[in-house]
């Protein structure tokens, strides 16, 4: 029995591990310069080997979703003026330093064998925005792909991506490592990954933080007849067999929209974080922005945003007050902390028990007011009890902690 027959038999019996493949009849033709031209793309040649480069220009006043591209200038100025440390900040950068970057690959898992076949980015030039896409027409010219990429981007400073920290850039590094003996090193870029911020702002609000959903719900961008990114591997394999540029058209456009949307998204998120205007963001967004500042240790900015929420009179003001209390406590402003928390207690019957505990602690340790401390501890325990009846197994240790605190306070009162 021939080896191939054997393999065929094993395959039928399901003994070989399975990869899904779609049978495509191969075509021998290699380059279709005319067809590429229709897609606004042309060959880029190094030492007789070529890749395909697609380039598109957009005037600065072009509107993409809710914003015009040139609005990037305002937000970058705003960052420079704000003088705060924030992961979104591009304070000391020029617009052309930023590379709004996205890739398309042959697989969805990270790993050495996952090939990047499209490196795409948008970038600000003097009087326009350019979208440039480096496309790999055959696997053996990968070196040219990265050489051309390095030629164009070596003077950029920051990447702006969507999940690029976990996926795109490590994958670029992986593939670059395979070529490392024949090519210059990759530049060391700063990196703004907008997915992290998007998750902070909209995790609870949106069904998922996929870029297409954020575009539709937050940026006013509606894609028509878009090829989903998940189709990219299949389409590329089909292209590998047939070499017809038409097959790649949908993916090129998809990537083009992605890298343009990154500009819009960056403008939008920057405005949310920087603006104090009431109408700019929803209360929920503002609350998340405040928490973001708080997590970064920017207390003053956090307090600013919490105050806006309190002033709005929205139901979330209770949460904002509670959060402000924590910041004041951290700053050892006991009076302000207690005031904020007592305000929250007055406004709402559903304050988490830890607020009562924290208030009790300040009364006990700072003001030596054991009566008030006992009062708040007892209320904390009530809230905890109510909550615990909903649980099947209330934690014994928590109950003990309350009881211990109450005993101690009563002892002090009885002295």
């Amino acid at each position: 029995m021939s080896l191939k027959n054997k393999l065929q038999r094993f395959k039928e019996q399901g003994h070989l591990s399975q990869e899904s493949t779609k049978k495509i009849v191969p075509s021998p033709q290699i380059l279709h310069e005319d067809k590429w031209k229709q897609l606004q793309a042309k060959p880029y040649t190094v030492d007789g080997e070529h890749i395909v480069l697609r380039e598109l220009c957009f005037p600065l006043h072009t509107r993409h979703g809710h914003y015009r591209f040139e609005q990037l200038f305002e937000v970058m100025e705003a960052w420079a003026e704000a003088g705060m440390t924030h992961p979104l900040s591009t304070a000391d950068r020029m617009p052309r330093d930023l590379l709004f970057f996205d890739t398309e690959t042959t697989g969805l898992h990270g790993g050495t064998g996952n090939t990047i076949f499209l490196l795409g980015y948008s970038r600000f030039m003097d009087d326009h925005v350019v979208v440039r896409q480096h496309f790999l027409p055959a696997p053996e010219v990968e070196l040219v792909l990265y050489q051309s990429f390095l030629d164009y981007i070596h003077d950029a400073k920051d990447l702006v991506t969507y999940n690029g920290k976990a996926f795109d850039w490590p994958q670029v590094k992986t593939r670059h490592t395979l070529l490392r003996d024949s090519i210059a090193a990759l530049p060391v870029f700063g990196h703004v990954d907008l997915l992290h911020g998007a998750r902070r702002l909209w995790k609870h609000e949106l069904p998922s933080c996929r870029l297409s959903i954020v575009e539709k719900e937050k940026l006013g961008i509606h894609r028509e007849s878009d090829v989903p990114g998940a189709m990219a591997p299949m389409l590329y394999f089909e292209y590998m067999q047939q070499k017809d540029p038409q097959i790649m058209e949908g993916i090129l456009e998809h990537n083009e929209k992605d890298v343009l949307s990154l500009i819009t998204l960056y403008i939008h998120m920057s405005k949310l974080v920087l603006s104090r205007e009431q109408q700019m963001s929803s209360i929920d967004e503002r609350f998340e922005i405040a928490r973001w500042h708080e997590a970064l240790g920017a207390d003053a900015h956090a307090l600013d945003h919490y105050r806006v929420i309190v002033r709005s009179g929205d139901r979330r003001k209770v949460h904002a007050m509670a959060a402000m209390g924590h910041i004041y406590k951290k700053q050892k402003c006991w009076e302000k902390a207690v005031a904020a928390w007592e305000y929250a207690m007055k406004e709402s019957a559903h304050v988490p028990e830890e607020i009562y505990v924290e208030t009790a602690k300040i009364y006990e340790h700072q003001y030596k007011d054991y009566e008030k401390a006992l009062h708040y501890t007892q209320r904390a325990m009530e809230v905890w009890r109510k909550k615990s009846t909903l649980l099947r197994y209330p934690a014994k240790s928590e109950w003990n902690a309350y009881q211990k605190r109450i005993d101690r306070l009563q002892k002090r009162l009885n002295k």
Partner: protein
Amino acid sequence: MIYTANIHSYNREKRVIIMMRKQTMSEILSQLQQEARFSANIVRWETIPAREARTVSFPDTLDSRIRETLEKRGITSLYTHQATAYEAVRSGKHIVAVTPTASGKSMCYHLPILQTLTEDPQARALYLFPTKALAQDQKSELLELIGEMGLPIKSETYDGDTPANIRQMVRKAGNIVITNPDMLHSAILPHHTKWVSFFEHLKFIVIDELHTYRGVFGSHVANVIRRLKRICKFYGSKPQFICTSATIANPRELAEHLTEEPMQLVDNNGAPTGVKHFIFYNPPVVNPQLNIRRSATLEARDITERFLLNGIQTILFARSRVRVEILLTYLQELIKRKLGPKTIQGYRGGYLPSQRRAIEKGLRDGEIIGVVSTNALELGVDIGQLQVCVITGYPGSVASTWQQAGRAGRRQGESAVILVGSSSPLDQYVIQHPEYFLERSPETARINPDNLIILVDHLKCAAYELPFSEGETFGNAEIVEILEFLTEEQILHFSKNKWFWMNDSFPAHNISLRSASQENVVIVDITERGEEKVIGEMDRFSSLTLLHEEAIYLHQGRQYQVEKLDYEEKKAFVREVQVDYYTDANLAVSLKVLEQDERRMSQETEFGYGEVSVHAMATIFKKIKFETHENIGSGPIHLPEEELHTNAAWISFPEALMASLGKEQLERGLAGLSHVLRHVAPLKVMCDPQDLHVVPQRKAIHTGQPSIFFYDRYPGGIGLSEQVYKEMEMILSQAEHLIASCSCHSGCPSCVGAAEDDGGEKEMALTLLRVAQGGNMHVS
């Protein structure tokens, strides 16, 4: 130590033992020697004398910090094998060191590697252990050593349990990375670009427990090593291999086959050993007509209990998972009142890793005094000093018997090993001919890295890791045709003299090194509603006979009944029950020859070898009562047929036999002979009897002749039946010897199987053997 003076009557055999105080091991041993009931069943009591150490002084080149640390530990010289290994590795050779358990084998690699690291702090070493547990164990030992030496060496395990932040440190700066082949296969090699400096500076690859890399697992690992060497070459390193192995017949050949490098064998063991008593125990005959002996399981239980009750740490080995659980149930019941149930634990393959680790720790701490284990513990997990090892039934090979026996007294001092024979033909042969075991060289370990299915799997992984160039080799394998096949399948893409990976999957995730079938069946406990939990897993083929509906599945001494086996979804749902029986299932097998590769004649009988297709289907199961082992019920099993395409060797008897013997007699003879061969053949080729199946056919499909087939139980075959074909004459003569020397009248479980009202099985089997060896078919 004074035991409370309560007189406990202990009554199974109407004996009364008055336990005034705990006995020492020598006291128990001399009691066993004197006690008539026990001593009558001792076939042989072999005392293996203590052995003096053979040492050499430290090599001059050894770094003073290493020397001083060893001296502080009271080590002032090296055992001969350690010194030889050190010098050989220093001179750039690949080595395989073969010495018994507890001979300081790991120093064979620690020493030269630590020495190199004192000279070159950039150097890296990869330690491969077959299991995570072993890796953990070695890590603690190594860290202690490095700590005492005060060397700036970073050593860390890299497995599924390693936290993400540590992983990055290990990749970038770990001098010694300790892992297992599975992790290398699915996590390190496919991400080699994250390990650049590791691969650039990789100087040593340690393969510990080399002997475990045999059969299917070994064949997979050989291919993982081909991939590893390919990646090393890409980064410009050429590491040295240091292997260590338990005693097998062909350590050097196995190491060379696995690594495809020339090896120097280091076997001049210089470690001392204490006195070891090796006792061959044959349970008494309870039914002289049928030559049926008392159950080995029950005998082993009674012997083990004696040691346990005196607080002597004892390990009890059983051949199957089911046996382990049965013995565990018995012993926990007996010991519960005196020592507490947790002091005796089971240990076998199906347990979850966390459970296994807790058991290993309990043994080391002494909180557990008894362990009932399958051969999972054959591996060198350091569980501290066990004094006694009781083996229920011959483990099937000389090598694994010594491995199990090595569990007792591994750190010197007096120890005892008691081998309790079962009624199986092989056991009876070994137990009645102890010299066969004691004088015989251990078995040969085989792998077949070029098994087509395994090779294809790893070629995919290799192509994912780096494109293949035309003319590139993959170890000694022929690969061009396979690469072309994968290109036709559009998994690879050929362009400019290279094959590129062109698929969206991650191939290593679809390929498991451990099991023939790609997916295991998960066992889910549904006893408590809302509290369903996974308690274990099992390979698909075993699940046919162990997890069918109504099967009793035993886990940590608890009984579960299988309520539903979802074969499609690979899930078995079980519910805890308390019953007084266990279940045993039958597997019906049909087989046809696809292609014959080899043939030779022995007079009118033909021996053949080739490719076959096997169809297996579970048919019925029986319920068997504990203690009495009687059959108390049965039922059908409804599960799909499994198909297997593999290699087989066979014996084709002349068609004329049918006429001269009669259909019924012939069938009985074939069945009887198969029963013997099933036990004898695995002996010759060193494999678990589970890996090589023997099937008789009155009328083989391809010839119409009476035949007996031996087939590899893995798709594509792993070289077992090929070996059977080569050694057929030897196997047949051993089978004849076994049957002829059995004392039964016309067949018993110890030779041709239980005879049905003198069906003549024994005589028929002998007739067939004579014919197969070119003799006369007429019954004398």
